[in-house]
């Protein structure tokens, strides 16, 4: 029994390999890109719009509002990163409804990659917003004694992001696999449904946490003081 789609390798050349995780990710990317392109290819700027456009607008606006609620005043700048995090994870988890599908988020490599993205995105956005000096200063707040703890926090929360998502999705998949062998009728369906819910919740949690980290990094210290 394969615990991770990483283990299904189609092609290998030394360090480079083409496994199920990457292929599934490509598929998801393709679906997202094509659907987006297909719907947005003739967007209407009128008051009357198509249902698909309306659906996409609802998704985009909801993400935008979520980012804004967390405390980022200019969500348009961050929606590319945070929105894509959510959409990718949500889509990846949603596709478990297809048979023989293995979510790429069930691979620790993928979750680690996403967590690393967040890890790098936080200082990237922080520096672009406040400048490198101000951003680095935030590590010695409130005192310099806090510097190691801040650094440890930075690393540990990235680790936690990766493990949390991976653990949840992987466990969901394993539970279904186990139940299939124990009680193959009905129970896997229920567990799959629960897995679907978990997947959505995890997508939400992942992207919200990423937003919170970014928000904390880009928050204006001056405005905070006042």
């Amino acid at each position, binding site marked *: 029994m394969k615990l991770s789609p990483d283990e299904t390798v189609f092609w290998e050349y030394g360090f480079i390999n083409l*496994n199920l995780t990457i292929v599934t990710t490509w598929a998801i990317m393709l679906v997202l890109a094509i659907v987006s392109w297909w719907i947005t290819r003739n967007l209407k700027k009128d008051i009357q719009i198509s249902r698909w456009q309306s659906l996409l607008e609802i998704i985009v606006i909801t993400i935008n509002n979520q980012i804004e609620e967390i405390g980022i005043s200019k969500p348009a700048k961050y929606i590319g990163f945070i929105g894509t995090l959510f959409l990718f994870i949500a889509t990846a988890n949603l596709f478990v409804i297809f048979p023989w599908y293995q979510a790429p988020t069930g691979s620790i490599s993928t979750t680690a990659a996403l967590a*690393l993205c967040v890890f790098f995105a936080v200082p990237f956005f922080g520096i672009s917003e406040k400048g490198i000096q101000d951003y680095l200063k935030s590590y010695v707040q409130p005192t310099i004694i806090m510097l190691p703890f801040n650094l440890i926090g930075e690393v540990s929360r990235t680790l936690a992001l990766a493990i949390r998502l991976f653990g949840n999705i992987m466990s969901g998949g394993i539970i279904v696999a186990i139940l299939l062998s124990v009680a193959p009728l009905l129970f896997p369906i229920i567990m799959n449904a629960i897995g679907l819910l978990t997947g959505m919740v995890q997508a939400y949690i992942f992207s919200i946490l990423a937003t919170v980290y970014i928000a904390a990094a880009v928050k204006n210290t001056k405005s905070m003081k006042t």
Partner: protein
Amino acid sequence: MKIDWFTVIAQILNFVILVWLLKRFLYKPILNAIDAREKKINAQLADAENKKLEAKLEHDEFIRKNETFDAEKQQLMQNVIDETKTERERLLKEARIDADALKTKHAEALSEMQNNLVEEYKQHMEQEVFSISKKTLIDLASVDLESKIAETFIKQLEKLNESEKNNFVQSFKSDSKPMIVQSAFNLSPEFQHKIKKTVDEILGTDTDFEFKVEPDLIAGIEMTANGYKLAWSISEYLDSLKKTIAEKTDEIRKTATKKVKDANK
């Protein structure tokens, strides 16, 4: 379960590509469309607001005009009413004056007519009375009546008081002409004598007499001497009657005129 670092790197790349793709195909167009729509809606709202404002201004203008119009209408109506009232009063006054004038004229005409009528009646009555009297007396006239008249005349002569007698004597003495005695009928010599005798007694002289017949006297005798006239005849009574009737009719006429005037008031 281990981390495959190649997969990690690949997934990072994949993720970055996906971010770019979704930015390109999803967020940007959608957000742009939303912005454009919001702008459009805002523009429309602003336009609607402007239109509303314009409509309000026009509405206000309309109401103001309406009010002005109403006020003007009211004023015009009031003017017309006032003018009509004045005109009505003027016309009424004129009509009243005209009516009064007409009434007066009418009253005058009525009065005139009445007067004429009364006059006509009076004359007619007078004529009737005279003609009746005349006719009666003429019919009655006879020697007997003559003698009665002559007797009455003689009695009158005798009854003359002192001042009258003096006047008579004075006027007779200044004239040498004969005394003229006129009568409707030829006096009998007896009465001629009696008259002569009575006059002689009064005058104390023997007087010449001239006796004439004058039918106009109707029934009576008249004695004339130098402007002085002594007479008795029925025509005197008739004159007196005529005078009385005239007075009476005048009185009646005056009363009638007064009544008409009172009625006009």
